[in-house]
Structures are given as structure tokens and as C-alpha cells.
């Protein structure tokens, strides 16, 4: 099985740790952490990334801008993105999905939900890729 490379983009250290813990349920994975969108883009320049999990409200560059930049770049536009929102942030969620995010999860996150969402996104991408080929 191939190693899954996750990029977790969160300004809160508590949430970063929590998400990373949950992602370790994937048997073979590597997790890179970034504190905001700009930091994520810097790390994506030299790290292999298979899935991005990003918060929306962050300083310097927020999650929506990150989604937009990733989707507009030919080398990164196919990377699955899961946005992490608070329950009340309906507008952010719609905007994120319209910009090209694949799925969203609400805080407080449950490890099971996170793993299920990421699995579904990856399976969706695989199915989409096979149907295109």
C-alpha cells in the first residue's frame, strides 16, 4: 500500500494535533502541518501531498484563498481538499465547496467522521479517475 501524505492546515495547535491523531488511523501515512495558507503553499513546494485538510479562518492566508490557489495551479489542482468549519459557518462551507473543496467536516471533529470523510473523498477521486481513463 502506498503512503498517504496529508497536509493539515490549522492555526490552532490543539486542532492540528487532534486532526493528526485522527489521521494516524490510516495505517500508512505521513502528516505535514502548516499554520496558515501561506505556510501550506510553501510546504507544498517541496512536500508530496495527497490530501489537504484546511481550516477556514486563519491569519495571513485563510482556507478559502488556499483552496482557490491550489485549484488554479495546474500541478496541485487535482489534490483532494477537505475544509474544516464551525457549524454556524454555512457561508464559508458553501464558498469552499464552490471554490473546489471536495468535502467539509464540522468542529468539534470526531475522529471517525474525519476518517470516513477522507476515505470517501479518496474513493470518490479514485472512481472519478478510473471513469475518466
Amino acid at each position, binding site marked *: 500500500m502506498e503512503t498517504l501524505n496529508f497536509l493539515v492546515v490549522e492555526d490552532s*495547535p490543539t486542532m492540528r494535533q487532534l486532526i493528526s491523531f*485522527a489521521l494516524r488511523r490510516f495505517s500508512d501515512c505521513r502528516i505535514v502541518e502548516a499554520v496558515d495558507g501561506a505556510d501550506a503553499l510553501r510546504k507544498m513546494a517541496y512536500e508530496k501531498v495527497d490530501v489537504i485538510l484546511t481550516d477556514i479562518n486563519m491569519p495571513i492566508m485563510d482556507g478559502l484563498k488556499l483552496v482557490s490557489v491550489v485549484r488554479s495551479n495546474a500541478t496541485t489542482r487535482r489534490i483532494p481538499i477537505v475544509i474544516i468549519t464551525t457549524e454556524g459557518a454555512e457561508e464559508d462551507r458553501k464558498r469552499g465547496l464552490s471554490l473546489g473543496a471536495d468535502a467539509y467536516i464540522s468542529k468539534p471533529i470526531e475522529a*471517525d467522521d474525519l476518517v470516513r470523510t477522507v476515505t470517501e473523498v479518496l474513493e470518490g477521486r479514485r472512481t472519478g479517475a478510473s471513469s475518466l481513463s
Partner: protein
Amino acid sequence: MSEKGHGGENLQELVRIEAALAGVRDACQRLVEENRSLRQDPSRPAGADALRLRALEARVSQLEAENRDLCREIAMTGRPDPLKEQEGLLANLYVAGFNLHRTMELSAVLASVKEILINLIGAEKFQIFLLEGERHTLLPIADEQSHRPSRRRVPVGEGIAGVVAKTGIPYFEADGRDGDFHNPLACVPMKVDGQVIGVLQVSRLFVQKKRLTSQDHELFSLLAETAGTALLGATLRQRAVQQEGTSALDWPAIVLPCLQIDDGGPQAHVAAGDGGGPAAGGTGRTN
């Protein structure tokens, strides 16, 4: 064909029909007897009881169908796994404990407590109080909005927060996700060496969180035991920084006098006598 021949065939046909009729009569007789014996069976309900029995049988069939659907649903969504739940709890406790003690900056400690309440417990509205002055009132020092909440003080012994501060016994609402400032869902004392120094209260949970779980109670226990220490440590450090007139970057200048005091203790002498390890090395430098 002759008439005699026809007569013989008709006779044979009649005999065959007669035999068939006899068979039907026997079968009817058996059914009548069976019916009679069933009617005489005392265990077989009749009338209203029979109707009730049919209704119960229908309900059993319906429940069996629901059971099948639920089993299918559980198989698809994944059965709750106690090991996974335990793992989740331990991860939450580790993350909470780690983040509470990763800094001595008061604002950062407060931010950690708030993050634990928001991201791990799912609190939408909450207040953090510290006991002030002669320990007669609780002063709000943070809420979900900011580090500078309204200065609505709570007298110790009054209301839920005041009683929790006085008794040191946590309070939990059994059910629901919506309370208010005076009727919180959870209110726990923050203690240092068994003495209450403040109170945390949660008055509303996020929409997706229906009620507080046993995992949340564990997190509240951790907060009760460690958040107070972290907040007190950070407050003392901030006061020391202000008294010394130093900036936060001059941290070693504040720590070193503490280390010198420790060096005078018997344990430090033993370490120095052993002549090894980091403790001994540190002692050498400070002396």
C-alpha cells in the same frame, strides 16, 4: 362401437368418480375433525384474544424488519468500537494536557483552555472565572468571544458557579445542549493543590453536539486538575516579569534565581556528588 361397450365404459367411469368422491369425503371428514380439535384446544386464543394475537404477530414482523434494517445500517456505518472510543479519549486528553502546559504565557494558556472547550468539548458559550481579592467573588477573565468579557462578578456561594467555587464540587446538567449564564450545562472548579482558584462553566454546546458525554466529563476532570495550575503559573510568571521590569524574552533571568534556590536543597547536593547527569551539570553552571 356397440351399446354394450358404451355401458361398460360408463360403469367404469362411475366407479372411478365414486372412488374420488369417497376420497374427498374422507379428506373433508379429517378437516372437520381437525377443526373441532383445534377449537377445543385451550391454548388457542379466540375472539378478542385472537385479534390481539394477530396484532402482536404483525408488530413482531415489523420489529424484525426494523431490526434487519438497523443491522444493515450498523454494518454500513461501522459499529461503535470501544477500543476506538478509548483511543479517541486518550488522544483528546493527551492533546489537552500537552497544550495546557506547552507555554507560560498567560494569554496563550487562556487560548489553550478556550480551544479545549471549543474544539474538544464543543462548547459554543462558556465563561472562565478566577477567584479575586479575599476570595469573595468570581471574576470572569475570558469567554468564547474574548479575553476581556463583561466584568459581571459572581459572589461566592451564590448561583451555580458561586456554589461550585465554594464547595469545589463540579456540577453537570443531566441532559440538553442549551443553558445560560446562570443555568450552565457544566460548571467545574479549577484547583491547585486541592484549593479552588477559579471556575469553568459551559452554558451552550454547538448544534451538532446533543449533550455532554462521558468523554467530556473526563476532559472536565483534566481541566479541573490542570487548568488551574497552568493559569496560576502563567499569572505568577506574568507578575514576576512585571516586577522585574523585564520582557518575556528575559525569561532565564527569572528562572535562574529559582534554580539557585533549588541548588541549596539536599537533592541537588546528591546530584552534584554523583558527578553526572544533566542536573549536576546545571548545578555546576549556576554555582
